[in-house]
């Protein structure tokens, strides 16, 4: 095994790249869960975003247009979840699973003609002075714009939930929808908007996978990234800052195991490939064993004004 082949500056840079899709999806899902809705369809929305983003970017040779289309498509898909769970009061767990299955089918249907094509990827930014810094430049300031958008999004979500009135209403709806309803807030409307936001974020995350991270379209390419995003929300105890930490930790694990595989570590490949999932389980266990949860009190409970 040759660990010296791993360059620390490039390692940090690739961790940021591999964390971004999960971070985007997780921050969106956190807002959804803060409003009291459990959307298990992240995986389905992500992969739909991945395929639509890829198709649009390739067709119009514009990655930014691809990202916009991915966000729209995934939000449209999440709208079906919103209608089912908010207006038709279906079971959120079952509907989320259904959304994932629909998304997986839809994406491989749309993606067939695009298999094997090369993506039009985002250019790396060249920020004056910052990008030229010796090691820090490679690590932090030579990424594509979406890496910074995702970080900005985390900051915005944090500020929105903490400092704005709308954020307070959203949290109130998630903690006790009956009280929020009694105060005259539109519970269903707030939740639908949150679900749409979550969908758009998942779509961006998916498009980042197919346009930057891989960059190619292959069937089932999200490979559980959406589920890991769900786990990160639990890991983060529903706090924006911790979502970021969680996503970067998982990005780190993923990159590290790939580097170890490349360096020919004396660990079975199957174990290394499975390590992100095993570590997710491990983290979930530690979090739940600690017993501090902070889940929104109305999470997963359906709301109807009559009850």
């Amino acid at each position, binding site marked *: 095994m040759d660990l010296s082949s791993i360059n620390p500056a490039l390692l940090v840079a690739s961790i940021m790249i591999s964390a971004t899709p999960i971070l985007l999806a997780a921050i969106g899902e956190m807002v959804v869960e803060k409003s009291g809705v459990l959307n*298990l369809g992240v995986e389905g929305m992500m992969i739909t975003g991945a395929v639509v983003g890829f198709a649009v970017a390739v067709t119009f040779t514009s990655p930014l247009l691809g990202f916009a289309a991915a966000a729209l498509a995934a939000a449209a898909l999440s709208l*079906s979840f919103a*209608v*089912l769970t908010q207006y*038709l*009061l*279906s*079971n959120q*767990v*079952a*509907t989320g*699973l*259904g*959304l994932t*299955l*629909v*998304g*997986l*089918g*839809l994406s*491989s*249907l749309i993606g*067939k003609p695009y298999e094997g094509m090369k993506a039009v990827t985002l250019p790396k930014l060249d920020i004056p002075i910052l990008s030229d810094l010796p090691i820090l430049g490679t690590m932090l300031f030579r990424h594509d714009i979406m890496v910074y958008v995702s970080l900005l999004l985390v900051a915005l979500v944090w500020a929105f939930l903490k400092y704005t009135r709308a954020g307070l209403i959203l949290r109130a709806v998630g903690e006790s929808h009956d009280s929020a309803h009694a105060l005259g807030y539109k519970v269903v409307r707030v939740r639908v908007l949150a679900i749409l936001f979550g969908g758009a974020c998942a779509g961006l995350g998916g498009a980042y996978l197919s346009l930057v991270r891989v960059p190619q379209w292959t*069937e089932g390419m999200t*490979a*559980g990234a959406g*589920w890991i995003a*769900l*786990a990160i929300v*639990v890991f983060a105890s529903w706090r924006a800052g911790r979502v970021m930490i969680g996503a970067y930790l998982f990005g780190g694990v993923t990159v590290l195991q790939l580097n170890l595989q490349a360096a020919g570590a004396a660990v*079975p*490949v*199957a*174990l290394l*490939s*499975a390590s992100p*999932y*095993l570590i*997710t*389980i491990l983290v*979930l*266990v530690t979090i*739940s*064993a600690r*017993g501090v949860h902070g889940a929104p009190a109305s999470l997963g409970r359906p709301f*109807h004004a*009559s*009850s």
Partner: protein
Amino acid sequence: MISLEKRQQPSQVITAITPLIAVALTMIVGGILFSFYGADPVESIRVIFWDPMFNQQFAGFTRPQLLVKAGPLILIAIGLSIGFRAGIWNIGAEGQYIVGAICGAGAGLAFYPSESPLIFPLMILCGALGGLAWAMIPAFLKVRFGTNEILVSLMLVYVAQNILISVSTGLLRNPEGMGFPGSRNFKQWDAAHNAEIIANTGMHWGVVAAFIAVIGAYVMMARHIQGFNIRLSGEAPRAARFAGVNPGRVVFLCLGLAGLLAGLAGLFEVTGPAGQVSGQFNAGYGFTAIIVAFLGRLHPIGILLAGLLMALTYIGGELAQLMLGLPGAAIQLFQGMLLFFLLATDVFTNYRLRFGKREVLS
């Protein structure tokens, strides 16, 4: 103005007919979808739902496939439905199915080339235990630490897939297979082959197990105290506690049964229709079974019918690929839509539509 009004009691009639409405809606939307791919909508629906059973030319070949495909779906869905009734969301049946297949196949291959009649029973036992063990991981973590079983069971699917790839290119690889990945072919080893019991019917031991599971689940859920405890834990967890139901035991029972049945399904699949352990022998039955469980209203008899219907869409989907050039993924979407429409129409079990202005309740 249309509004929903809560029913005094859930409607039994609606519960029974929603699957039919969902199927009809899926056919309509599916037909429209297929017409985008240049297929005549009516013809494509006929190819999917009618031809596999009744076409004079090839129904002879496709009809046995119905049981072959429905067997594992029903077996897994029965296990899942028991958990879903108790509010335990095991969505990692695919992983339990894979591990069951690996354990059972591994146990058999250890005795190759023995022709002892004990080989196949041993493999069945190990397959069931493998699935059970894999399902015990989320069960134990949920009971001991309160860890969410949805995420853990699903993560374990990806772990199982990695193990599957590893053993089919390593531990269980056929030493006489010229270095190709995949284990020995069980179809060429009589003692371990899950052959058809009656020729050209598709009836193999996995289908028999599925029928036994349907009857067993029916008796347990309708007549046995454990079935009552499971239903009680799902519908009124507090009441279940007061009645002395141990929630941990219900978790172990539900996940254990699901894992056991999924493991069995995996073993029967790998020794029969699939023939060998290879990286892609699992056809996603563990996920489709979730749809089957819901479509069957979490009721054993319903699951039996839903499993047959879902098997029909698999076979019909393959036919539609061959005859009409429809993409294979269209069927996957078709199956997902079915679940969606079912959940959408489900609302009318507990609510009724009320037209006109809502009255002010006194």
